[in-house]
């Protein structure tokens, strides 16, 4: 898949100030995340007229509860999202980790590690030091 096409596929998720942050571009995939805010993916979906195709069970992963979704883009196919939240003293962080293909357990672990290195999570750790 052309990079341009991949980016376009991710772009459908973005809405004004909600930034889609690319974590890593791979040969056949792009790992990214989007901050969903308190309303989570449901709000994002509503505001973008997205179709929620399937909801999977929670994936319990190293104390984090990740909920997987598949979003259908009209022209470009599926996008896989994994919703996760982090509780803090000052604020809670709600994000959806995204991929253009379904991830295995180890791939999820890898994406989570990438997210932990992101500016968004670093800021969350600075502001919520007790976490």
């Amino acid at each position: 898949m052309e990079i341009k096409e991949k980016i376009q596929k991710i772009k459908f998720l973005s809405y004004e100030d909600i930034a889609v942050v690319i974590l890593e571009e791979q040969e056949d995939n792009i790992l990214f995340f989007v901050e969903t805010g308190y309303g989570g993916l449901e709000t994002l979906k509503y505001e973008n007229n997205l179709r929620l195709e399937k909801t999977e069970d929670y994936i319990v992963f190293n104390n984090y509860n990740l909920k997987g979704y598949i979003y259908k883009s009209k022209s470009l196919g599926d996008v896989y999202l994994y919703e996760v939240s982090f509780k803090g003293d000052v604020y809670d962080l709600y994000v959806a980790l995204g991929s253009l293909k379904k991830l295995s357990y180890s791939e999820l672990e890898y994406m989570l590690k990438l997210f932990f290195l992101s500016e968004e999570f670093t800021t969350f750790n600075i502001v919520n030091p007790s976490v």
Partner: protein
Amino acid sequence: MFITIENEKNAEELKGQLRLLINRSIENVLIPFNNETLIQFCLEQIKQDKRFSFDKGFPILRAAELADMAREELEWHILTKKKTVFVVVQKDLLKVFYPYPVSCERAFEFSMHTIRQNYQRLKLNGKIFKDFNLISIFLLTNYKNFL
């Protein structure tokens, strides 16, 4: 929920007018406030203005973002009126409260102008603060010298 206007025409101007509306009324916000009460306060002001509606036309702002706008305008109000803010230092952070922190043992009085001039604001748009009366968070690099 979106704050909406009749049509796309003049959207930028009306978004500015919306901010002005918040600016002019923000000093009357009930204390203590948090994210929810800030949004509620702003919605009450907006409901009284016929230029704006809710989910009925062209969207100019998400209701959830009203708290950010309210905090920004409150900060501007503090600056222009040269009022004192209350600062709580937590490791490398400077948590800025106005008027006073509700649940805090030790807060220092400071000028908002000084803080803005010397310290880096954390970009926390859209975050729902849990502390009452918390308006912004700055990152300190030399806070020991500052105090």
